[in-house]
């Protein structure tokens, strides 16, 4: 019975956690953080346990209301969804450690709704990952989006404007997705992913199907900030409060990427995919996005905005992997979900700490910080090296698999872009690094943030390295079994 409730364990914990947080917050405001911490620790335990069980025993399902699919809603967990859930929850937990002091200083009066919405956000994201129902996914999509808009809107004076734009575009994306689901429903009469997947092959050749898939991909790409639909992201990340950015930036776009994988590779079967030119379009747009995002990042003078544009580029790597769709490319994409989540959260936590300590955010003002905040910037350096793709960090290996995937697919220009983009990334990170370490700034008064924040930054920094070295354990044990058999490497 415990096993069968695992798939809904994390969402229910977070749902209950949000309710309890608000309820307790009515009585005592400072209870919000500890409750959230407990909920997230439990969620992390459940998600990791779920991952282990899934790896050992195969997919788990939970039929809500006891109704078999396609009558009711089914939560179906396979390796991939268990993996992404764990990534989401664990990264969020680490950011939460940082969040206690940051939220108290940045938004002292909104502690309760902030932490409640944080859990709502995670509820939405984990729900999206775990559900096996296309429409249920839309509901969770919107739950996470609403929480996201609010968290983004709570920042500097400009934040509401960027949040409002995000809201318009996000709703547009969700609506496109819903429209796609609508077409699929009209064509198949079902909303359950597995059921739809079994009906779709009979519909090959129907022009509406192509457009339905295009709508879904477009909607998800918007949410994922895949070029050219990335317009909302830089402002949103730049103006949001540091904790909000550190939660949203690493995981929100990744979950959309996960859904894209789910739709393209689990709902569509290979024969169907062959008739729809979505894959190569996504790959090429994403490759363009890598270049555009990196070049824009170089042009920025605000560190947070630079990281935001770098997110556009990094998400595009995942897009390239999804678009290429070869076994190696998919490994690259899924591994990059994890590695980018780790390194980007680390980077944003550092910029947040710097902003809290010194109020600085421009590239120029980072001079000499390496000396006064040694631990923080040790983590930053590791994460930055991973972003560039220096071995043996995690960032290197995800790009490595993408390169192998590109070579397998024979897409040489994309291989070239993936490889050469590392140089652009190196361009903006080494410029910053030089300022951080080589320019002494004697008047600087700052030091490493408190113990909790330091732990989370260091853990993420170390994680980047450990993930890189142990990447193959991950690929072999987690990512490979999680993909459909036709998309696995041969001989594994």
């Amino acid at each position, binding site marked *: 019975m415990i096993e069968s409730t695992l798939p809904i364990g994390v969402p229910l914990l977070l749902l209950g956690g949000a309710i309890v947080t608000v309820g307790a917050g009515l009585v005592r405001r400072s209870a919000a953080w500890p409750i959230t911490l407990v909920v997230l620790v439990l969620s992390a335990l459940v998600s990791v346990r779920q991952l282990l069980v899934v790896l050992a025993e195969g997919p788990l399902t939970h039929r809500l209301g006891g109704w078999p699919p396609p009558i009711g809603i089914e939560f179906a967990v396979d390796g991939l969804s268990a993996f992404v859930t764990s990534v989401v929850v664990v990264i969020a937990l680490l950011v939460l450690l940082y969040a206690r002091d940051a939220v108290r200083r940045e938004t002292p009066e909104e502690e309760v709704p902030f932490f409640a919405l944080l859990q709502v956000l995670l509820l939405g994201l984990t729900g999206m990952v775990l559900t096996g129902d296309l429409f249920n996914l839309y509901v969770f999509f919107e739950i996470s989006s609403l929480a996201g808009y609010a968290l983004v809107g709570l920042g500097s004076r400009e934040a509401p404007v960027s949040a409002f734009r995000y809201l318009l575009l996000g709703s547009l994306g969700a609506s496109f997705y819903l429209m796609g689901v609508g077409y699929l429903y009209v064509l198949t009469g079902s909303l359950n992913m597995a059921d739809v997947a079994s009906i779709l092959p009979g519909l090959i050749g129907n022009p509406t199907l192509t457009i339905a898939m295009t709508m879904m991909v477009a909607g998800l790409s918007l949410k994922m900030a895949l070029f050219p639909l990335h317009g909302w992201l830089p402002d949103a990340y730049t103006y949001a409060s540091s904790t909000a950015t550190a939660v949203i930036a690493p995981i929100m776009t990744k979950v959309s990427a996960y859904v894209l994988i789910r739709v393209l590779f689990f709902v569509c079967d290979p024969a169907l995919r062959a008739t729809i030119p979505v894959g190569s379009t996504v790959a090429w747009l994403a490759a363009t996005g890598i270049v555009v995002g990196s070049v824009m990042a170089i042009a920025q003078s605000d560190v947070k905005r630079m990281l935001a544009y770098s997110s556009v580029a990094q998400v595009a790597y995942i897009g390239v992997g999804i678009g290429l769709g070869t076994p190696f490319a998919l490994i690259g994409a899924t591994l990059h979900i994890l590695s980018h989540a780790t390194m980007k959260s680390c980077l944003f936590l550092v910029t947040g700490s710097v902003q809290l300590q010194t109020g600085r955010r421009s590239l120029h003002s980072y001079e000499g910080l390496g000396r006064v905040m040694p631990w923080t910037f040790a983590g930053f350096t590791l994460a930055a*090296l991973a972003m560039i793709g220096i*071995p043996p960090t995690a960032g290197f290996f995800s790009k490595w698999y993408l390169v*192998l995937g590109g070579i397998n697919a024979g897409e040489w220009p994309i291989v070239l872009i993936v490889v050469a983009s590392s140089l652009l990334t190196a361009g903006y990170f*080494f410029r910053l690094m030089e300022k951080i370490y080589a320019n002494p700034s004697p008047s600087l008064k700052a030091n490493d943030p408190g113990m909790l924040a330091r732990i989370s930054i260091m853990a993420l920094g170390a994680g980047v390295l450990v993930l890189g*070295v142990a990447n*193959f*354990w991950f690929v072999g044990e987690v990512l490979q079994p999680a993909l459909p058999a036709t998309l696995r*490497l041969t001989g594994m």
Partner: protein
Amino acid sequence: MEAATESIRPFLAIIVSMLAIPLIVASGEKRPNLREAWTLIAATIKAGLVFSMLPAVLAGETFTCRLLEISPGVALELEADPLGMIFAIVASTLWLLTSFYSIGYVRGAGEHKQTRYFASFALCLSATIGISFAANLLTFFVFFETLTLATYPLVLHKETEEAKAGARKYLCYTLPAGLALLTAIAITWGLAGTMDFRAGGILNGSMATTGQLRILFVLFILGVGVKAGLMPIHSWLPAAMVAPTPVSALLHAVAVVKAGVFGVLRVTGFVFGPELLGDLGTGTALAWIAGITLTMASLLAMKQDNLKRRLAYSTVGHLSYIVLGAALINAWSWTGATLHLMFHATMKITLFFCAGAIYVRTHKVNISDMVGIGRQMPFTMTAFAIGSLGLAGIPGINGFVSKWGLASGAVAAEQPIFLGLLVLSGILNAAYFFPIVHQAFFKQNDAFPRLGEASPLMVAPLCVTAALSLLLGVAPNIGIHAWELANLTARAVTGGAI
């Protein structure tokens, strides 16, 4: 003869200096003696580990160590083969000497941020040993890039505008090179289905068209050639001379640049192999690039007045000797190349040590200011003379032995033009080194400050390296059996014997 033993020793040799890093950092600026003790202990253990594998390697055994898998079918795998041993011995021995020298230097010159300096240094050495023991291309690449990065803070060390420019230039050359190498590795894996180094090569002509293989070769040479200082992609090396002298000595005379030429050796001998290189014609092309580089570099070296820059150009030239040997790829040239990898290191590090000793004592960097210095620093300048004579190829010093091998290789390859270039370059070497020695000893300069020698911590290592150069010149097979090791790898790669 190809007996492979599972052993953790190659791994330990790499990890020992990495383990020293946290200890170095923890000791910090407050306890410099403890910090330096860690460096020395790590260096001693590392050298001990490397040497402990030597007898078995000489007997034809190799030590392999398969760590965890890092990509499907590709593990982080180490193998101590003769070629790897040559490089590892050079790096670990000279690290030990450089550690003593560094202590004298950074304290004498009053350098800042010494902790960062020693920590980066230890990381560099880990990477270097990793490069030498790497058993496949991906492992090689991992350590190759680590070395690139670990060197960056050392070049940047002084944090002046010049140092920043030099460091930037360094990255601008090495990072794209790394990417070219990465692409080449990925393609190789696609073609050959393996990344393991195998003496005689893993690629063959049936795997792809000639044109494709040529492009692949160019990518590889771009990847490793930057560090090997091949023209026209060498200019980071003189710029990187802004680093403290021990860094120049060890990294830009031994570790980094030798990693580059070591990469060339691995690519020509262990990825492409003699036959394929001959079929593609790329071996000859590379030989020409090397030939041009070694001549041009010698000419450029003459123009430099800054001693370290002159040594840098000399390094560029001598690296190309090795590349030439690797490109001609016959038993003689390979022996000469691997020997030169080792012997050039002892000679060049002597010269850099001398330059550093002079700087710390007199704060002079330009050759024109060093008139009459031999009277003040007799040991230093004698060592300098030995080193420069060796580089010019005077018999009795080890440089002669390796050049002999290379020259015989040019003859064996029936390419006498390269023999001519080697002779010419030897004359040019003499032309740019002898004036320094001459003005140091035989010109009167009463104005020269009477300061005497630098600290023993600095003078002793440079005497040791000079003595080593002499010793190896007389008896190249003594001690580490350099000649034998070089022969072993030459036999394995080319199939021929001397």
